[in-house]
């Protein structure tokens, strides 16, 4: 078994233009910074990116958007990125805006080998257009399909050389489901350790889902809104 690679550039080597990529993170929280930088540098384009948000103008996926490397985004909220909203309103970028729970569940269902499921979210709205509706206990639901991707790229706090991953605080978000859903999953970690250093009880994503793992470097961990409590002294 040899899942370990040296860095992001080696990890993303199989990704070509036109690929569909899932990227973990919520806003800038838990984003795979090293792989995003490597994708920007590699210069591939016509990408379909599945990510809850689009980063901010000059960080996260915003970097790929600036370089016009993304053809299509599949997201639930893009409010923090003015360039994204501009490209969307001007028709320069294809966008599927999907309810956040539907997005998370579509990815989770791909991870679980379930091809389709029913959710009440979006019934009666434009999200329902063209979708099958079915009633259960007199309540309407939309049929949604599992969402797969050629590649899933996630960033975890700790991972071992067998691919087991542990996440910290709210950086789990979409990453755990994406890691399990990708055809090929790439994980960058803050701490790469040997097997046995992660207690099996503590594993969030089992190594079976992870194909390549590497020790990440120089994490900026940018904060979008640094809200603090003023303490009276």
């Amino acid at each position, binding site marked *: 078994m040899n899942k370990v690679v040296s860095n992001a550039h080696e990890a993303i080597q199989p990704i070509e233009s036109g690929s569909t990529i899932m990227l973990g993170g919520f806003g800038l929280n838990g984003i795979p910074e090293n792989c995003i930088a490597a994708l920007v540098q590699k210069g591939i384009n016509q990408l379909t990116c599945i990510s809850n948000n689009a980063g901010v103008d000059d960080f996260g996926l915003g970097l790929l958007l600036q370089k016009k490397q993304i053809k299509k985004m599949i997201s639930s909220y893009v409010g923090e990125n003015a360039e994204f909203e501009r490209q969307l309103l001007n028709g320069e970028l294809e966008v599927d805006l999907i309810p*956040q729970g539907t997005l998370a569940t579509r990815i989770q269902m791909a991870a679980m080998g379930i091809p389709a499921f029913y959710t009440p979210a979006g019934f009666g709205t434009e999200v329902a257009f063209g979708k099958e509706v079915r009633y259960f206990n007199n309540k309407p639901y939309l049929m949604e399909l599992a969402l797969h991707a050629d590649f899933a790229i996630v960033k975890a706090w700790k991972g071992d050389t067998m691919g087991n991953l542990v996440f910290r605080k709210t950086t789990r978000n979409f990453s755990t489901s994406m890691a399990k859903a990708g055809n090929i999953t790439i994980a960058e970690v803050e701490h790469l350790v040997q097997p046995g250093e992660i207690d099996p009880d503590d594993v969030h994503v089992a190594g079976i889902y992870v194909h390549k793992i590497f020790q990440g470097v120089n994490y900026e961990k940018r904060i979008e809104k*640094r809200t603090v409590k003023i303490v009276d002294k």
Partner: protein
Amino acid sequence: MALDKFGIAKRIAKELKDGMYVNLGIGIPTLVANYVPENMTIIFQSENGILGMGPYPTEEEVDADLINAGKETVTLIKGAALFDSAESFGMIRAGKIDLTVLGAMEVSEQGDIANWKIPGKMVKGMGGAMDLVASAKNIIVAMMHTNPKGESKLLPACTLPLTGLRCVKKVITDLAVLEITPDGFLLKEKAPGVTVEEIKRKTLGKLICPDNVPDIEL
């Protein structure tokens, strides 16, 4: 006179009951967390994976790995739990959240809500709003009674793209507390000093006004 956004939040906090699990949307709803009564335990859920969201951190406590659904840095209370987005929306859809408070651009007399898109102008995305309104047992909308142009936000039917159908139970604005009934908006309370006439004028949807409308007590 009309309430300000803090007054709206204070009035919504009166709907809280001890032990409730509550989801607060961005904007005015987040202020509700500041007015939880002294001896009451409320567990705030953040849809990005927190049960037991606490107050904002001090400078020393700031942790880049710990944010809420509005992308703000937060803390956790004792007894908090962390999980992923799939689980978060699972618990939302399964009806485990006791109260959802969110903002809106429009609410209809049948309880439809529009709060995510202004075609051609603002398309930030719906985030978790559609999941929340489709599943929540108890939805309260917190908003101004009229928009910045002075137009009513309580309408016979929403004109903007919908977030959800027939889901809102209660609306609390700067002017009034209203319930949604099969016969339309029912005026339950009014802001002190505000007249029923003003509320009628600013409510385009069907409005039922009882003879005696008590003042909002904060």
